[in-house]
Each structure stands twice: as structure tokens, then as C-alpha cells.
């Protein structure tokens, strides 16, 4: 028989979104997975752990509503609840922004764990947007997490950093790590100029949870401050599938080759000329 307390603890899941390399799509992934989970009726808290270079607030379109931030919570300048910004578009979605005028040393892993444990009581999912690098910011972000989403692009530099991150997560006792391959371009894969999802999986050898195609709609969505998860765009569909898989459902992977083959052939002709 489970008691209420352990049931409560088990219910909430803390996911860190990390990559090692910068600019591969951690923040975009955090925003979309978090929004997608909220759209599925879950109570979600997004935490931006990138102190000094916060961005999740702008990707979410909530930058004008920040009053308190993570560092204020840690330093006791406000209560946890005061720092949470409610996203009015999606019930159950909250953001805890990071501080822009401080640096990574303003928070330590023990303080992060304390904040997360407090939030666990109120949320189904807590998504931590990890900063690039493997220094203190990374250590802070992973400290309180149960599982990790490792984001990479099919490029040598991003894969190398992802491999390093996977090693560090393993060393920190993580046993659930899932891979998101971002910005895949099927036309380039077909030309032999980009590693395929299978190639990346073979190298990194952790379970795949999503393949997100390179999609200009992501830029448009970021411009507008509204994550595109679930929208009728390739990346929107891909992120919607990631969300379903995070929830534990088995969803077949999208076959981007189908949609792109004709276009590739046409461009192939132009290439010859």
C-alpha cells in the first residue's frame, strides 16, 4: 500500500533539458515540451536556470511580467509562489524566470534542490532549462532532476558535447536520459551531407525520444513568443510527439523523408545544373 506522501512524490517528475553545447535548442525544447505538457492538462513549472543569460522568458513571451526571479527565491527576497509567472494562455503552466543581472554562483545545487522539492508538491512536471557548459550552472540544473532530455543537432561539435554531457549525467547517477535530435534536415541526409537520426543514435547510444526537423516556423514562433508545439508545422508535430513520449506513450517516429522527397528531387535537379 502506498501512502499519500510517496504517491505525491512519485507523481511529479523533474526533467532537465541539457545539451552541453549552446544554441542547439535547449530553451526552445524546454518551452515546447513544457507548453505541450500543459496542453495535455498537466500542471507544469518551467524553470530557467541560466542565470545571467535568461532566455526562456522571451521564448515563452512572458518577459514583460517578471517581478521576482530564481535568485530572489533562493536568497529569500520573496516566496516561491511570488516568483512564478502564470501563462494565461495555458492553464496550469508557470514559469520561474532566472536573474539577468547575476551570475551562476548566485545559486548552489543544495538551494536548487530545496526550491524544486517545494515545487514538487504543486506540479506534475518541472522542466529545468539548463545553461550551456558543464560548470556550476549545469551542476545547479541537474541537482534536483529525476531524468534528462539531451538535445543535440546532427553536427560533430554538438554530438561531441552531448556525449560528454551523457557521461557526466551517468556519473551523477542519472539512469533516465532521452535523446532529442534537433534541426534535422532530411534533404541533407539524403544527399549524404548530414548524419541521420540513426547515425546519431548509434554514436550516443541512449534512447531516442524525438526527432525535430529544421523548421523556419520555430523562428517565427520565437519571434511571436508562442511555442509552436501541436501546431500544423513539422516541428510543432515533432514536439507534440515528444510530449506524448514524455508522458510514457509509444508514438511512432515521424517520417520526414516522405514529405520532403519530391522537393529533394527537384532541388537535386537544380544541383546538377
Amino acid at each position, binding site marked *: 500500500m502506498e501512502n499519500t506522501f510517496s504517491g505525491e512524490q512519485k507523481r511529479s517528475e523533474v526533467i532537465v533539458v541539457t545539451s552541453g553545447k549552446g544554441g542547439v535548442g535547449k530553451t526552445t525544447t524546454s518551452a515546447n515540451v513544457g507548453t505541450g505538457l500543459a496542453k495535455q492538462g498537466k500542471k507544469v513549472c518551467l524553470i530557467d536556470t541560466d542565470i545571467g543569460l535568461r532566455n526562456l522568458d522571451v521564448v515563452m513571451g512572458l518577459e514583460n511580467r517578471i517581478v521576482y526571479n530564481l535568485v530572489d527565491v533562493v536568497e529569500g527576497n520573496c516566496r516561491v509562489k511570488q516568483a512564478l509567472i502564470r501563462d494565461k494562455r495555458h492553464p496550469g503552466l508557470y514559469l520561474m524566470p532566472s536573474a539577468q543581472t547575476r551570475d551562476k554562483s548566485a545559486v548552489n545545487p543544495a538551494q536548487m534542490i530545496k526550491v524544486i522539492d517545494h515545487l514538487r508538491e504543486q506540479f506534475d512536471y518541472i522542466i529545468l532549462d539548463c545553461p550551456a557548459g558543464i560548470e556550476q550552472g549545469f551542476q545547479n540544473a541537474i541537482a534536483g532532476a529525476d531524468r534528462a532530455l539531451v538535445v543535440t543537432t546532427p553536427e560533430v561539435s554538438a554530438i561531441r558535447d552531448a556525449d560528454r554531457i551523457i557521461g557526466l549525467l551517468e556519473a551523477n547517477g542519472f539512469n533516465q536520459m532521452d535523446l532529442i535530435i534537433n534541426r534535422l534536415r532530411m534533404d541533407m541526409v539524403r544527399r549524404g*551531407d548530414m548524419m541521420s537520426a540513426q*547515425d546519431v543514435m548509434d554514436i550516443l547510444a541512449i534512447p531516442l525520444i524525438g526527432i525535430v526537423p529544421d523548421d523556419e516556423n520555430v523562428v517565427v514562433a520565437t519571434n511571436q513568443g508562442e511555442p509552436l508545439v501541436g501546431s500544423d508545422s513539422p516541428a510543432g508535430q515533432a514536439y507534440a510527439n515528444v510530449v506524448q513520449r514524455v508522458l510514457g506513450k509509444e508514438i511512432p517516429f515521424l517520417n520526414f523523408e516522405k514529405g520532403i522527397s519530391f522537393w529533394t528531387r527537384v532541388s537535386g535537379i537544380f544541383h546538377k545544373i
Partner: protein
Amino acid sequence: MRNFFRRKSSCQVAKDRLKILLISDRVNCSPEIMELIKNDIAKVISRYMKIDAENMEIQINTKGSKAGKATKTSLCANIPIVDVSKPDIHKDTQNVY
């Protein structure tokens, strides 16, 4: 199409480079440690045969089966042998077995 006949695809180049890169990253073996390993191997082997310790090389390689994740990492030592027969020591080793 253009580079189909000419050379390896850039995808293949990337994979090959990553394979080698990740081995050295994962092993986390500093050159000093590699040197110590090399010296120890040389010491052991030279108990049985005369080797050219100056020109020996050690490397960490992976042999990946294309089908899946079963890549095996191995330490390869290339040790030039100067003289195989070192009779007196040879006798000792035979006695052991």
C-alpha cells in the same frame, strides 16, 4: 551526386571523425597515463623477448559493428620485436605452465 564518385560523403567523414574523437574523450586518459601504461607493457613484454621499446606505440581503438551499438573499445600495442629468442627466460616461462 557530384561527389558520389569522387569522395566520401561529408556525413561519413563526420561519423569517422566523431568515432575517433569520442574514444579519446570517453577514455579520459591523459598522455601521461598513456605513457605509464606504455612503459609497464614494455617492462612485462621485455621479460620474455627483446623489444624495441623506443619505437613501440599504443593506441585506443574501437571496432564498431555497423549494425548496432556493440562497439568494442580495445587497446592496441604495436611493439617491434628485436629478438624473439631469449633462451634463458624462455625456459622459465615454460616451467610456469
